[in-house]
């Protein structure tokens, strides 16, 4: 009986600890830069600061280069606010939930948030220093979307391969560097390769610097008002 009580007590402590870990980090800000190159020669550089509070579920980009403007992502809408004039665009559902900010703050980055999604784990293999898992869409989505392969290296998400329903690779993300702030880890550099239907390749490097968690200095950005349109 004593042993059962002890085990129950121990499991309570572990549960409380994991809940506390998950809720310990609730907001993040960073200086970001996105460098992009297309195979047709086009390139771009976008820089500024980004803010995310997981309770508000708004990603706010304070873009400073090439032009000063605000990009606010809320629900399935992106608002682009330039010279106080807002513009509205639709974004894919799940943009915020699967963002690197939401995944990192909820401690779901390692499995790319796929554990509680429309995907199910099919296979796990090990190769040298990588653990590679194959995730396939559940039956009802199999005709629309393809598999996702995830590799974990040194207990951190390293790479994500995205396939379409015809098993053709359409995207590759590599998390090359991480920043550690206490017990919190956040990607410092993400390299992204996209392969379009027209045979073009888009290469993108996203970097995050000066990352701060649970920061209250720039509070107004975390809950940026949604424009009335």
């Amino acid at each position: 009986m004593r042993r059962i009580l002890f085990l129950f007590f121990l499991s309570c402590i572990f549960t409380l600890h994991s809940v506390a870990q998950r809720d310990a980090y609730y907001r993040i800000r960073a200086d970001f830069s996105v460098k992009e190159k297309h195979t047709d020669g086009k390139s771009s550089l976008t820089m500024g600061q980004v803010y995310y509070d997981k309770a508000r579920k708004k990603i706010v980009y304070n873009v400073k280069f090439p032009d000063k403007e605000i990009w606010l992502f809320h629900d399935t809408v992106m608002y682009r606010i330039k010279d106080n004039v807002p513009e509205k665009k639709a974004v894919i559902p799940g943009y915020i939930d699967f963002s690197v900010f939401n995944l990192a703050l909820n401690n779901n980055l390692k499995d790319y948030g796929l554990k509680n999604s429309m995907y199910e784990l099919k296979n796990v293999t090990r190769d040298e220093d990588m653990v590679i898992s194959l995730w396939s869409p559940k039956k009802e989505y199999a005709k629309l979307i393809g598999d996702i392969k995830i590799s974990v290296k040194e207990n951190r998400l390293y790479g994500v391969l995205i396939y379409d329903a015809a098993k053709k690779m359409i995207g590759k993300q590599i998390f090359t560097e991480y920043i550690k702030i206490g017990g919190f880890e956040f990607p410092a550099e993400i390299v992204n390769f996209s392969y379009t239907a027209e045979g073009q390749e888009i290469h993108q490097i996203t970097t995050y610097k000066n990352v701060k968690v649970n920061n209250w200095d720039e509070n107004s950005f975390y809950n940026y008002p949604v424009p009335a349109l």
Partner: protein
Amino acid sequence: MKLRYFFLMMISLLISSALMASGSEDFSFDNQSLEREFSALSALEALVVSNNYPDIAEMEENSMLAPDFLSNNQPFHDRGEDPLGIPGFWWGCVLGPVGIIAAYILSDNNKEQARMALNGCIVATAVEVAVILVWYVVILSWTWNYSI
């Protein structure tokens, strides 16, 4: 018999390790070539940070930009999302001119999506013309042979 099992086991081990190796190779990329590809943008990034984030107009005024930068630069969200999640190319390819209009309207007047739809429309028309030509050639050669 035992030797046969051992042999089979060795082969299956070799195959499985080869399969796993190809899995990790998929995650590799050429870091040096990527650095070379992005060297100009990285230099510009450092310039923007060291000048305390001037916008493009300020940099242009102060002649801080390469002359061809403006024509090639397109902020990464300007490309817009695919209309209803379907790339513009397929809108044009499947629906033709109607698809070009649909891609333009559904992507909130995004010219890039309309251009992709136009490409799709051109490709579909070219394929259609090629199929019709082949069809006529086949029919003509068949009737020619039959009449002789």
